[in-house]
Structures are given as structure tokens and as C-alpha cells.
């Protein structure tokens, strides 16, 4: 555990220093890769228990809207507080469904989560108070009571994303290595045996679902702070699909894979959308097929701990 913390903190420091050298466009790209990566990390967490959510857009949007509303309506502007609030809001929103969903597996779990996210999408589009399908903008957050200067905004938002995702990743790694984390992996393989050994599969799965929701909500808050604008698309199925894409690319073996894969996706997105705007998803699809063929356990399996 100590090693995990030291390793995580060192990586955060390295990224904070590296950020000083990065051009503006790359800083933004990394910020989005971190924000989206933490949502996919939630799916990785679910995958370790044997399920995949096709509706993480739900928690992504819940966290994003919560952060934006807290900032606009209640004047809560601290970036780290908003990140935590985004996570908490997503947990609150999904808690009523956790036990129900914990009983489903495979395609049923995937479709139910997808359905929930599309319900939220439908509601958001119809809600004029939240800007309907156009969404609304959010002003730049503050950090520890300080305003963020224009010239530094890119770097500061990047740093916030790096620190927040760093903390969440350390937490995720500790969880993966915990006894509960190990039992999650066992559930993926043999639920019957786990029940027979005296642990509640439903409770583990429900807790995993809520942990993933927290990660998704925090990711949503980080994303909206970087983008400054939120819209119902956060909860649309294509957004959820990208999170799944990244999670499968990453594989369920580790934490860093989710961020590496998320970075790859942002890179491909940013280049392909300028060169072949209509076919870039196809490029992603082909890339995913190659990964599944040659690295069935994900790109993350290349990163040895």
C-alpha cells in the first residue's frame, strides 16, 4: 500500500512538472484524457467483477451537471470540492438502482445501464431550466480560494485533473489490491463459490457499481471544468461507448492502462477529426479490433507492475 502511494505521488509530481513543458493544445488534450480516463477506470473496476456498463454517460453527466449547477447556482467554485461533489452526486443519483443492477450480468447489465443513461439524456434535453439540448456554460473554477489567471488557466486545470485523477487512481489501486478487490475478481470467475464461501456477491457488485459511479461523476466534473460548457450529450450513448472503448482497450489488469488508452483515444480523436472528420470512428473501430486480437487482456497488460 505504501508503495502504491509513493508510486502514485511520484507520477503526479512528474506529470505536474512535465505539464510546464507541454504546449497548450496538448495540455488540454491531457486534461480531457485524465477526466475521461477516470470514468473508464470506473468501467475497469466493474470489469474486474465481470460486468461492463454501457451507460457510464449517466454518471458522467450527473457529475458534470452537479458541478456546473453548484458553481452557477450556489457559488461553490473550488475545483477540488466540485470534483468530489460531482462524484458524490453521481453516487446519490445511482444509489437507488445499485442493488437492482447488482443482480444482473452480461448484456442485461449493459443494456439496463444504457437505458438509464438514455432516460437521463431524454430528461436533460427536455429540461429548459438546464438549457435543454444546448446545455449551459459554467465559469472557470477557483483553486483553494484563488482565482485562476487567464494565462495559467490551461496549466492549472491540467494540474487539477492530474492531482484529482492521481488521488482517485491511488484509491483504485488500493481497492484492486484489497481483499474485496480480490473477491471481485473471484466473482468474475465463480459467483456460486463466493456465495458458498460466505460473501455476498450482490453487496460486492452494488458497492462496485457505486464506486464506479463516483469515478464517473468525478470525471464529469473534471471534464466540465476544462470544457466550460455542459450539454445532454454527456449522457448520450456514444459518449458511454467511448468510455467502454477505452476500458476494453485498457483491460482490467491495472489502473494506468485506462489513462494510457484514454490518451490514445483523445489523440486519435483530435488528429482524425481534423483530417478525416467522417471516418475517424471507423479508425477507432479498426484499432480496437487489432487490440482485441493481439492483446485480449487490453493494452494495460503490457504495463507490468
Amino acid at each position, binding site marked *: 500500500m505504501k508503495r502504491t502511494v509513493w508510486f502514485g505521488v511520484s507520477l503526479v509530481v512528474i506529470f505536474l512538472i512535465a505539464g510546464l513543458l507541454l504546449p497548450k493544445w496538448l495540455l488540454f488534450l491531457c486534461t480531457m484524457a485524465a477526466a475521461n480516463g477516470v470514468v473508464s477506470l470506473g468501467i475497469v473496476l466493474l470489469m474486474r467483477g465481470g460486468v461492463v456498463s454501457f451507460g457510464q454517460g449517466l454518471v458522467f453527466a450527473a457529475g458534470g451537471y452537479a458541478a456546473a449547477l453548484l458553481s452557477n447556482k450556489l457559488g461553490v467554485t473550488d475545483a477540488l470540492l466540485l470534483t468530489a461533489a460531482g462524484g458524490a452526486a453521481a453516487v446519490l443519483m445511482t444509489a437507488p438502482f445499485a442493488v437492482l443492477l447488482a443482480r444482473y450480468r452480461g448484456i442485461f447489465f449493459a443494456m439496463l445501464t444504457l437505458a438509464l443513461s438514455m432516460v437521463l439524456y431524454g430528461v436533460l434535453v427536455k429540461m429548459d431550466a438546464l438549457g435543454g439540448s444546448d446545455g449551459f456554460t459554467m465559469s472557470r473554477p477557483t483553486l483553494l480560494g484563488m482565482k485562476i489567471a487567464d494565462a495559467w488557466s490551461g496549466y492549472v486545470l491540467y494540474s487539477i485533473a492530474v492531482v484529482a485523477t492521481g488521488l482517485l487512481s491511488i484509491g483504485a489501486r488500493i481497492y484492486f489490491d484489497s481483499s474485496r478487490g480480490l473477491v471481485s475478481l473471484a466473482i468474475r470467475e465463480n459467483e456460486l463459490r463466493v456465495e*458458498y464461501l460466505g460473501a455476498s456477491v450482490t453487496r460486492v457488485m452494488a458497492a462496485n457499481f457505486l464506486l464506479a459511479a463516483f469515478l464517473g461523476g468525478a470525471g464529469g466534473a473534471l471534464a466540465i471544468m476544462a470544457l466550460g460548457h455542459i450539454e445532454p450529450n454527456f449522457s448520450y450513448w456514444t459518449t458511454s461507448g467511448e468510455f467502454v472503448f477505452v476500458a476494453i482497450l485498457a483491460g482490467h489488469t491495472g489502473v494506468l492502462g485506462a489513462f494510457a488508452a484514454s490518451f490514445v483515444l483523445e489523440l486519435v480523436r483530435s488528429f482524425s477529426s481534423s483530417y478525416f472528420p467522417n471516418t475517424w470512428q471507423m479508425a477507432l473501430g479498426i484499432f480496437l479490433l487489432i487490440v482485441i486480437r493481439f492483446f485480449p487482456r487490453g493494452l494495460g497488460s503490457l504495463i507490468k507492475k
Partner: protein
Amino acid sequence: MSPVLSAKSLSKHFDGVVAAEAVTIAVAAGERVGLIGSNGAGKTTFVNLITGYLKPDAGAIELDGRDVTALGPREIERLGVARSFQIPQLCAEMNVLDNILVAAACGGEALSFWQPAHTAQTRERALALLERFALGAHAERRVAELPGGIRKLLDIAMSLTRRPRLLLLDEPTSGVSVEEKFPMMETVMAAIAGETHSEGTAVLFVEHDMEIVTRYASRVVAFYSGRVLADGAPATVLADADVRRHVTGGQI
């Protein structure tokens, strides 16, 4: 003293198939009970009923005098009942040690979100258990790569992590060659004795080999189409005319 297990006229039918009919069996602490019966006689069904996986159509199950008929496998395990499986139920992609750690974690108080599954202490305890089963050398091997006999032993070792008061072994030596059966049973029984409760773990084991039954059981229960045909000392039961006709087929 009330028996550890008391099954009272348990019945279970599957679409007209009688898997259990008025099965009444009481087991005291420390007893070694051999369950015999031809295929389809209802031995596994009995184990499934006792462990709460199947609900009886009629009858009651008591553990230490407490009615547990309505409880599921998890609650029953928590009351000190463990089982192994005719077909080993393992996590095939994990290594042997992790399977034991899973078993130990599942049986613990509450699953921790942060306490590492692998600590010097948990590993030491898991390895000690594996040693009792002569599985120490396989600790780091992936389960999927291991031969059936080893998996069988691991399956039983997992059921012992919590020192159960009642242990149900469903055909512990099936799928193992004849020469290996005795050493295997020897290992299992020694391991159980090593992990045992002060008053003695009660063991029920399903077995087809009558030599093993006579050697390791202090009592034998014979099943025939869901019914208890005979129940008593091994010599008496195995000499019973009905048992010879329906179960052992003149063996011994």
C-alpha cells in the same frame, strides 16, 4: 447434547424425480459419516439441501438445534457449514494461493476496501493450509493448468479456511485413479484433523469406493432413490441385504 446437524424428513422432487424423500439424519460433532448410493440416489441433492442451495419441498434442517431451513448458502456458511464440490468450483484464472486467499477473505468479518489481500500474515496462513494438503509447491500455479486431482484438493482446502463445524465433501476422490484414492483421502483427513475444532469437525463424505468408506467412516448412510436405505456402523450397513442389492451390488 443436540447434534450439529439434524435433517428432519427432507423431501425434494424434480418434475416427478424423487431426489429426496423423508430423509432424516442427525450428525454429532466429530462424527465421520460416509454417504453411499448409486448415481442419482440423491447424495448431492442432500448436500445441496443442507447447504441451503436447494430448498426442501418438505421437512426441516437444524444446525445446533436452530432451524435454518429458510437460509441460503451464505448464511449457512456463516453458521459453520462448509462444503466441497463433486466438480471443483474454483477461480481457474487465478493461482492456487489466490484461491485460498479468496476463501479466507470471503469468510472474514467484513470485506475490506483497503486492507491488502496479500499480506505476510494472510500469505503465511494460506501457505500453511496449502502445505497440509501437500499443495505448497503449486501455490503460484494458475489453477486452469493443474490436473484434476490437485484441483480436487484445492477445492477441499478452500472449504477449510474457516474451520467449519460441519464439513460436507461431495465425492472427494472421484476422478482420481484407484492408486491415488487412498493417499488423497489420507491427506484430506489429516488436513481436516489439523484444522479442526476442539470438539471435532463433523465430516460427511460421499464416496463410491467401499474400502475407503470402511477405512474412514465411523458411520455409513446408504441412499437409494432419494431415501435412506440404511444408517449405522459401516460393517452393519454394508452387510445389509438391501444395501447389497441396490448400492454395493455385492461388492465386498
